[in-house]
């Protein structure tokens, strides 16, 4: 639009040349920014204590450590002796989630809680369970929260700013820190880790979903509203179909991230395969540790691939 200071036009003779605005030139500012960037980068490299020399002299040490990890020792993974099965329970009673007599139920509970997670396969399964449960619970909570935290669907400005504030605050807490808090609160084990994943994932998913909701085509919303539809109907017909691909791909992406996070949470005793890995390293069982690392890599690859295929299927 033409600014108010421009001479009034009569509409017959457009002033073509005067209309073309010059692209702004900001050489000096760009140069200053570049200088500042270099300075900050130098400062960071200095503070990070990068000593290429030490790295160079450390190479033999690294090679030796890797040498000690080879070949990976899979006995702990494959050796049936490390897997103890309670004799009084049949495999179907142990593995299927059907009701059993009370004494057997207690036995089963103990096996799942304490015995099985000590094995590599058990810890891997536990890692997957933690990631799945944490992600799923987070989705259940983040889904409504995403609508409350989106400018265009939030029922009230106060709710919008309130949920944003809480989400942004909670999201600044790393999941490892949350893990420490919940280990202190509910004790060692997968439960603490799962809540940590749940809380962190809720904040991330809530934020991503609210952005997805804000990016929808408002024209569709208006068209649905114009038919006389109410709030829920607008969400179901105009908003949901538009954000569904995002919901699915964000959730799968967080599931991948949470598998990795769940493996690391074991380092602080919050369940999962990280605990076993840590023990092996601490007790200098390098070959055993490398076997666990390989299992972990395999797990992550399988989950990444599975979620890639799922995404292709639905989006």
């Amino acid at each position, binding site marked *: *639009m*033409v*600014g*108010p200071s*421009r001479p*009034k*036009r009569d*509409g*017959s003779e*457009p002033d073509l040349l005067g209309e073309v605005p010059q692209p702004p030139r900001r050489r000096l500012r760009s140069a200053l920014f570049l200088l500042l960037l270099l300075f900050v980068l130098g400062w960071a490299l200095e503070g990070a204590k990068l000593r290429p020399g030490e790295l160079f002299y450390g190479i033999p040490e690294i090679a030796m450590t890797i040498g000690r990890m080879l070949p990976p020792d899979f006995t702990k993974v494959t050796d049936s002796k490390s897997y103890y099965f309670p004799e009084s329970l049949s495999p179907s009673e142990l593995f299927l989630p059907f009701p059993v007599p009370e004494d057997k139920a207690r036995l089963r509970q103990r096996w799942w809680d304490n015995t099985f997670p000590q094995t590599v396969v058990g810890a891997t399964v536990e890692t997957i369970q933690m990631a799945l449960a944490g992600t799923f619970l987070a989705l259940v909570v983040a889904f409504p929260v995403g609508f409350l935290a989106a400018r265009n669907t939030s029922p009230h400005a106060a709710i919008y700013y309130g949920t944003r504030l809480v989400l942004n605050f909670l999201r600044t807490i790393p999941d490892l820190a949350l893990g420490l808090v919940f280990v202190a609160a509910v004790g060692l084990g997968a439960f603490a880790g799962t809540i940590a994943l749940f809380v962190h994932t809720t904040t991330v998913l809530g934020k991503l979903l609210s952005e997805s909701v804000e990016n929808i*085509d408002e*024209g*569709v919303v*208006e*068209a*649905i*509203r*114009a*038919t*006389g*539809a*109410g709030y*829920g*109907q607008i969400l*179901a*017909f*105009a908003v949901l*179909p*538009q954000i*569904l*691909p995002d919901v699915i791909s964000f959730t799968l992406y967080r599931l991948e991230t949470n598998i990795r996070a769940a493996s690391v949470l074991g380092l602080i005793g919050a369940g999962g395969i990280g605990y076993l890995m840590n023990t092996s390293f601490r007790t200098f069982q390098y070959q055993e540790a490398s076997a666990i690392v390989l299992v972990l890599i395999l797990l992550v690859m399988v989950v990444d691939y599975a979620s890639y295929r799922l995404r292709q299927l639905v989006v």
Partner: protein
Amino acid sequence: MRERVAMAYQYRLEKVGKVFGRRQIALARIDFVVQRGEKVALIGPSGAGKTSLFRILNCTLRPSSGKLWINGDEIESLHGRRLREVRRKIGTIYQQHNLVPRLKVIHNVLSGRLGRWSAFRSLASLMRPLEVELAWSALKQVGIEEKIFTRTDELSGGQQQRVAIARVLVQDPEVILADEPVSSVDPSLAASIVNLLIDIGRDTHKTLLMNLHSVDLALAYFPRVIGIKNGVALFDLSPDKIDDRLLEDLYSGHLPPSDQEKVAHAESNALAYP
């Protein structure tokens, strides 16, 4: 207080204006009355304010100034359920179609029923479409019934436009607002769609307002034509009184008017509503 005016009026507009942001004036001052069952075409250059006017007429956009009565109800007095009830009786065919691209055609068509359906029915229909015959017959009227289970984003522009028309047909409103309903179809189909909407309007006594870029269609099919330019109605006449000079005025100087002019005009009708 709700003011009652004679029930034969479908729409009554008094100095209706719309300002976007601080000074983007879409509508400066619009006054007109539309009787029930009347057929009116609106023409005018791009950016004249036709779409904004329709958004006000279907109660999804509040005017910044002036008054609007629909069927005797002053629009400012409507909220919640009553507002939705009024909206249900007004069907809009949007210039940009505004369909949900990822949904099947049938769901887009059936979204015209939402004003009548409960929340539960609506959800059920998303799982498994209800009232399929109704959607099918509406699609048949616009000639694309074979696309009923196709995903909407797989249709051509003209086919999508006809889905949008079918949505209004199943809504079965009292008023049809058609914003450029034939912009993406070929000329012969354009004429037959305008014809179809007029026929439907006549057979079921609907009020029909149509924005058209094609002056020929407007003059050929409508007994009343309103010319809109810079947010005001330049003329409001029957087609035989519209001559080339008027049309030239309407489309001449295809330049945005200076802002002082517009602002001065808008300030003269101080903003009556927030």
